[in-house]
């Protein structure tokens, strides 16, 4: 029973991790952008949700409806401003690393200036409530967040699978030059994908606002975990990001319960290390499909 409880907590945590990681892996898969500012954008959305709740009493699940499209537009803007000009560089991937690394610092600085360094957590009533089933408890906030993650991820899957733009995205993920040759507007697809990646960051940030305490420089910790998740799953693989997130979250919950919380964060990096030794392409690294 105790083990089941730990597994439940781990799965719920994994659901949110999966949403966070999906945006990051999508950006890499389509645009080969290693977006180190992903965590900072997640926090930006978290601040928006926090202040919406704190100042205007708007529930994060409502402010989501504004934050997701707003982040999509911000993503389109950021992509159009920063990335096309370095696209043709032979060192494109490395340059995106440096560019987004710098962007993360800029965002951190701006957030620190605007919101100060103090810890924030949105506190809707369900944040400290749980459903009790016998001896088991299912924390409401985590449950709602995971359900929303599932909905959004299914939506993303359907978009990629069935829509015309989605086909373009998948084609670009598989082979960028070939996609261009067969008439996919790669620039347009990239811009849309970056927007979607940012919208996913927006959604996960909104959830993060009431799940975890945050402050401007906290994004480094998140991006580190997310990088571990997507390398485990296979860079650019959406399925990999989701499986990686669930696996690692459950594993870290058990490590925390059995060996103590100090060892939990290490789980991510130990698994990352082992993965690179045994299967550097990640769980689903070969196939760049959805």
């Amino acid at each position: 029973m105790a083990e089941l409880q730990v597994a439940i907590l781990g799965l719920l945590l994994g659901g949110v991790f999966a949403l966070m990681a999906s945006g990051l892996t999508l950006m890499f898969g389509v645009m080969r952008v290693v977006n180190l500012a992903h965590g900072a954008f997640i926090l930006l959305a978290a601040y928006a949700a926090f202040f919406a709740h704190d100042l205007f009493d708007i529930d994060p699940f409502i402010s989501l409806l504004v934050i997701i499209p707003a982040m999509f537009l911000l993503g389109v803007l950021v992509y159009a401003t920063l990335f096309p000009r370095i696209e043709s560089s032979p060192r494109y991937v490395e340059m995106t690393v440096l560019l987004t690394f710098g962007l993360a610092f800029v965002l951190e600085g701006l957030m620190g200036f605007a919101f100060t360094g103090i810890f924030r957590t949105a506190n809707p009533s369900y944040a400290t409530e749980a459903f009790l089933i016998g001896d088991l408890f299912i924390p409401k906030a985590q449950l709602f967040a995971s359900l929303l993650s599932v909905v959004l991820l299914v939506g993303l899957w359907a978009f990629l699978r069935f829509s015309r733009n989605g086909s373009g995205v998948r084609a670009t993920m598989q082979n960028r030059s070939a996609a261009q040759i067969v008439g996919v507007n790669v620039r347009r697809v990239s811009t849309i994908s970056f927007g979607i990646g940012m919208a996913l960051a927006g959604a996960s940030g909104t959830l993060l606002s009431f799940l975890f305490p945050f402050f401007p420089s906290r994004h480094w910790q998140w991006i580190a975990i997310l990088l571990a998740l997507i390398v485990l799953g296979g860079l650019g693989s959406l399925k990999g990001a989701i499986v990686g997130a669930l696996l690692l979250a459950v594993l870290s919950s058990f490590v925390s319960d059995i060996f103590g919380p100090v060892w939990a964060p290490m789980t991510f990096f130990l698994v990352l290390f082992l993965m690179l030794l045994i299967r550097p392409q990640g769980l689903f690294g070969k196939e760049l499909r959805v």
Partner: protein
Amino acid sequence: MSSRKASIAILAVLALVLAACGETATTTTADGGATTTSGESPTTDAGDTTTTGGDGGDGEPIVVGASLPLTGEFSIAGSKHAAGYEFCVDEINARGGLLGRPVELIVEDNRSDPEVVVSQTERFINVENVDILFGTFSSLLTFPASAVAQQNGMVYPVPSGGALRLWERGFDNMFYFQQKPAEFTGESVVNLLDYYGGEGIVDDPPTTAAVVNADDFFAQAIANGFVGGEVTIPDSDKVVDLAPGFLADAGIDLVFDEVWPIGYTDWLTLANSIRSSGAELLAIASASPDEVISLVRALQTVDYNPKAIYASQGAQTEFAEALEGGENGIFIHSVWAPTANFEGQLAGDTYTNQDFIDGYTEANGAAPDEDEAIPFAVCQGMEQAVIGAETTDNAAMIEWLRGRTEADPVKTIMGDFSWDDRGLPIGRDYLVVQWQEGTLEFVFPVGEFPGTVDFVFPKPEWQ
């Protein structure tokens, strides 16, 4: 696919580097407990210098040097310490200075860096020839700075540096201006339960306890005292054995004992583990009120209701605001409180805690908290040492300070101080406060000053 491998390698390295970066993002308050050092460690010292005072009497000024963390990890507490020192020096000068001479305070920013605090302290002593040193903030910075002072025969009064390992090095120049080393915090908790047991209020005392703490200097020290750990003193083979610990002393069984890492987020899992232990008393040790808030929220979520919860942080208004009622019944140790109206001295006259609060508020437009009050008490102590020794000769001041007794103490706004051979206060208990229906009430020690109310036990159910 070599570019792909290169990307994976880059990402892997980044993940590890960023994980390390993430760890520097801790905030600390109160004692600060010297947690992590920042990733950015400039080793040269430049820093801003500000000078205060120098107009309080005739003749050569008495120069005081204070190297404080005005930027970096401890910047919030460090800046407040500067404000506390500056206000005290202004108050002394307004009363005619010290030994008829004006007092001049030089504050330099050590950027929370242990190497910078050392070079600044050396420069104060050897280049600026300061007469007096005021202590810095945190165990981390006090540890090396006090060693420089000791080598040069200078008094090192300590506002913040509660880890026992600082005090077991055989130095004769250090004097602590808080009640106890962090390791002895648990004693106040146990004393409180024992006292209210005698009063019939804690009628069914807890028999089991869980102790959880952050992975830092200060929190670890508190936890060590509860569970009876060992403290190794650096640069010596000395080990201080705290066995069996304050919990065992009080006949309480330890059923759960865990440390959470810096940057921890998975509070629900920890709360679940604590709940599974069924402990009746929970002690939470951390230098960060935010970590305590996160854990308490998780405890609410898993519906774990122990008889009592002690936390090392949480006396701030923000704590109650964040928990919205969840703070009710939680008790916290504290080193200073506005309502604890101790009678101190300044310039030979009575100077109470209330005088300090009123004066500080008028001068600065905001009420002080403990990070201004403690340095003020340090400054009072040094002023009394100069008056008592009738000189700024540090050897004579050390002798005078070491000669203090409980009957003839240094009198500050934080109460009376006299010290043992290590420089630790004799006969001082922490103040203990408890959240009761939205108000922070004084519950212990009873009888030292007016305004205490009864401890609420058992802790009310979550609202």
